[in-house]
């Protein structure tokens, strides 16, 4: 039996867990290919016009998997991975959205409900109900989850050493250890953005690589320790509701306070609801901290040259300030 996993949304955060889990149970895992223009176009046609770009891309990946003839597509219902926290409503309704809007998908979706108190979502309770559809016993599921958990923890551990999710996903799959992140850099940038925006190379046009080529050390939220991040928000009156948005905002605050971060770039996808609030909060607070902050909003039309020009200008500006400050010191 073939299980399809769309290369979109939380693929970039949980794939090692899910892939290992299904493979240990003896299934063939089919991951959809990288996002392409054709794939996005298909996704757009299958989606309502106003919905955000990541969901349109997700729909494109689902269509590709359906065409590939998989038996099931794995679309967990992401509800919560923190006490009192939620996911964006579109994540919570994603299986429903796919079942009723993508033709031919209705009976092919596996959608366990994910509620957990931590980021580690390898709890047996979440996946136990899938046993019937998969024809797997409790014992088998438990054992497969244990392996999945190991793979995911390893994935997270290496990420925190400063590697990007793409590098580590590659390492987990192929065993090819990524090269050390650059040592010679002139500027350090805190990059705020959801994993599915930053690491989908079609959406972000490989912004991390582009920055590195300019001699920039890039830090992202998932390279930091979860608990440290969480503590950043402790003096907030009321937290945001969305777990990953909170991580992003916490990373943003950390970047503001952290002396070795020279500037912050916020990558957001067109139509992202939670980001509309985060962006405003960051914008208002950046005055207080006096740190350069830039938002890059991407969608399926964004031109590569445009993006390159903007980040080049931003980095050059920061670099010049830095040199000037050094001279004056």
């Amino acid at each position: 039996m073939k299980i399809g996993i769309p290369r979109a949304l939380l693929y970039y955060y949980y794939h090692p867990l899910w892939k290992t889990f299904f493979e240990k149970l003896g299934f063939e895992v089919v991951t959809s290919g990288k996002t392409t223009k054709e794939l996005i176009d298909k996704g757009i046609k299958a989606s309502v016009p106003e919905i955000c770009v990541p969901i349109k891309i997700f729909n494109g990946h689902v269509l590709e998997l359906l065409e590939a003839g998989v038996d099931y597509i794995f679309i967990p219902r992401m509800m919560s991975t923190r006490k009192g926290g939620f996911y964006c409503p579109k994540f919570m309704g994603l299986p429903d959205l796919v079942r009723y809007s993508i033709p031919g998908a209705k009976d092919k979706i596996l959608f366990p409900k994910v509620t957990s108190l931590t980021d580690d979502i390898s709890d047996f309770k979440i996946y136990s109900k899938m046993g019937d559809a998969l024809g797997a016993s409790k014992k088998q599921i438990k054992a497969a989850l244990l392996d999945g958990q190991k793979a995911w923890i390893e994935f997270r551990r290496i990420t925190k050493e400063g590697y990007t999710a793409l590098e580590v996903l590659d390492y987990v799959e192929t065993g090819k250890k990524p090269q050390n992140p650059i040592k010679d850099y002139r500027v350090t940038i805190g990059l705020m953005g959801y994993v599915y925006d930053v690491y989908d190379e079609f959406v972000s046009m490989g912004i991390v690589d582009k920055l590195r080529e300019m001699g920039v050390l890039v830090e992202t939220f998932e390279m930091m320790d979860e608990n440290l991040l969480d503590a950043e928000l402790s003096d907030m009156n009321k937290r945001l509701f969305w777990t990953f948005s909170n991580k992003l905002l916490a990373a943003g605050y950390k970047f503001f306070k952290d002396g070795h971060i020279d500037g912050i770039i916020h990558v957001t996808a067109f139509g992202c609801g939670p980001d509309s609030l985060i962006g405003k909060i960051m914008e208002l607070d950046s005055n207080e901290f006096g740190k350069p902050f830039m938002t890059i909003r991407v969608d399926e039309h964004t031109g590569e040259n445009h993006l390159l020009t903007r980040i080049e200008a931003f980095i050059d500006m920061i670099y010049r300030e830095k040199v000037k400050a050094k001279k004056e010191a």
Partner: protein
Amino acid sequence: MKVAFPYMGTTVIYKKLIELLGHDVVEPPEPTQRTIELGVKYSPEFACFPLKVVLGSYIEAVELGATTIVTSGGHGPCRAGFYGETHKKILRNLGYDVDIIVFDDYKSDKTGTIKKVRRLKNGKSWFYLWKSLKTVYSMAKSLDNIEKRIEKMRAYEVNRGECTKAWQTIKTWFDEVKNIEDVRKTEGKSNKLLGEIKLIEVPEPNKIKIGIVGEIYVVMEQSINLRIEEMLGGLGAEVERSQYLSKWIDFNLLPKGIGKEHELNILKKGEKYIQEIIGGHAKQTVGHIVDYAERGFDGVVHLMPFACLPELVSQSIIPAISKEHNIPVITLSIDEQTGAANTLTRMEAFMDLIKSIKRTKIA
């Protein structure tokens, strides 16, 4: 303390509560083009439309002298729960000196909620507060009943606009109410006024019934949704909304087990399409569409603010529901760009479609 509140629906109800507690009420004006422009100017570009309009209306309230704004919060995952915090930040940044009291989920912050209530209680006794709440609740119930009646009558009035005019009069009458006894009397008086309006007789099978579903703010606030109820009424359709203030109170504020059957029943009907409550009113929206189809309504208008997170999920699913239950549904996504003429054309076309379906059914 000069107190204001967000403008949504029959505002005379919130006004009454604050008034009964002995505060000066600054009623924000009904949203106009200026309100929307103010809100749009200072809100995040991609924020949802209600956030922008409410911000605009807060600014107008502050200009009128409000020093405190009372509003409801939320626990997510819809953005509406974070409005309070966002508004605070933006207003502070603009240099407005105003205090925003946000009532969040009681369970998550008991002492905080009690503190806020004490502040608003204004030295009145708890018994007095209870009595005031009861008066306001009965007012909400009775106003909703009257409005429901008007929503049906409007389609058949002989003199265009008579019902809407009566509704305005009735609201000013309710503004004078002091206690439950007054509410009862005013309701009687209002019904008498409505009884005097001349109506055209239409045989039952020829009546057109349209349900309005969607996000609460755009469904309830007529100044924002292009007065869709009046528009549809003018085109000859009875309407019923999925959201009424008294029902919202029943479901969200009353203790467990009281007055919730209706809403729970609606949620159950939506279960097939959206299994979990995903924030906002997405699950209610799909539930109500099923409910309207089962009750023999002729069509449904689905209203949502532009880029509303939960309603985008329901919008994606609606074509499937419409097909399975054989009921036409039209979605209007509303923001500062929405034009009345465009909407009127779409509604006229929608009505033509419904009428032609009806004709073929009867024939």
